[in-house]
């Protein structure tokens, strides 16, 4: 009986901590919108369109939608050097913004589900943690 109770409690705790770590998608998107306003909007603009030739677009961006882990890596560690986005070359510097894994997951969920972007991937904190430099 004791064992069952302990197991039950442990399971409950596990579920609780999982819930704490990964909030519902809607919440993550809305938290991500705030991060976006703070750290991304100045260059990528509030339409996600960026500036042609200077700041790559996020809206309908083939680079973003086809390279989710590479995009996470860019946010987590910074990105510099030439990349091609929607057939246009960009050769700039995106500095590491100092966001934590939860903030990166949130902002990824936001940009993957805004301005017409749609993704079946729900980005979790664990996925962010797995991306290395």
């Amino acid at each position, binding site marked *: 009986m004791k064992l069952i109770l302990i197991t039950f409690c442990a399971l409950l705790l596990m579920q609780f901590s999982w819930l704490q770590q990964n909030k519902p998608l809607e919440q993550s998107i809305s938290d991500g919108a705030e991060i976006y306003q703070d750290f991304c909007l*100045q260059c990528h*603009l509030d339409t996600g369109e960026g500036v042609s030739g200077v700041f790559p677009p996020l809206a309908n961006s083939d680079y973003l939608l086809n390279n989710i882990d590479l995009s996470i890596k860019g946010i987590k560690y*910074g990105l510099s050097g030439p990349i091609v986005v929607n057939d246009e070359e960009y050769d700039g510097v995106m*500095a590491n*913004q*100092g966001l934590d894994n939860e903030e990166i997951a949130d902002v990824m969920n936001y940009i993957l589900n805004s301005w017409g972007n749609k993704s079946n991937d729900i980005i979790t904190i664990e996925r962010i943690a797995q991306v290395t430099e």
Partner: protein
Amino acid sequence: MKKIFLLPLSVVIFYTTSCISQENPPVIETPDQSQYTTETIVEGIDIPWGMDFISENEILVTEKKGILYRVINGVKNEVSGLPEIYVRGQGGLLDIALHPDFKSNNIIYFTAAINVEGDEGGNTSLYKATLKGNSLEEVKLLYKALPNTKKGQHYGSRIVFDGQGHLFFGIGDRGNRDVNPQNLGIDGGKIYRLNLDGSIPVDNPFVNQEGAIAAVYSYGHRNPQGMTMHPKKGELWENEHGPKGGDEINIIEKGKNYGWPVITYGINYSGTPITDKRAMPNMEQPIYYWVPSIAPSGMAFSTSGVYKKWKGDLFVGSLKFKYLEHLILKRGKVVKREKILVDIGRLRNVKEGPDGYLYIGVDGKGILKVIKK
């Protein structure tokens, strides 16, 4: 009937949209670019935020992510002894400046985002240290803005000396525009003035005002990213990032209010208005504002005469449009603007070197010397 209404309406819409999109004169010119070139002095720096010259061949350069380089003949040597830097958003290791008597005392100053309180977030600080070879010693925190915040924006901050025993540095509004810039009791959105030892000048404008921060020299700023002394008039010149269409050049005077966010020529990035007020009593007007915004960074006068016809002119980097802006002034007004080094890259900083040439910091590149053929 409908048409009669539509016509004036469309005229009004056309008028207002053309007002917004119209460039604030003088309209920028693009001269023949083949007369300009650059020479790479230091390579391989992502964000060369600040620099100062020990000599023609020796430069101190900050990299925003938290590295200080002593560059000797183009070779980067990492300097040890920096405090822990808070790297988030626009924050990190920022400006650097040699003490006016550096040759005899080896003292340097630098600004950086830090957190020494142990809570969350960070804010801008000013440090003093002694440079011995490739290490910093006697590192002393002179000023730390409060409160810390996790906001990513607007840390400031250039360091400038007035030649009369003072130093100035700026701190941006830290992403809290409705609270910080107009409140003299809270840091952010201010230009500060200190004595060279870090103490507060007794004649600072708000030393006797209860609740005011005594180090404050001027307020109502958004994000100062360029600052320099006028070589002849001894005035403190500053440029700051406004919102969309509201970047400014100001001459900073003691105790004055520069208006952010009560008055501004800019609008929110989203296109919505911040205020309809562009002027108010007891608030200073910029000597120039950029529409569209160029994201001005760095500011220097050319004083040396090594460039034909540039003596006395002002130079400002454009982070957004990737060129060096050349501004010709007459009686305190901008009368001509030119693009120099079109598409050079995100131009972070510009300074006049001891050899009289202009040196620029460019993101993803490093430090380049500006040459006019």
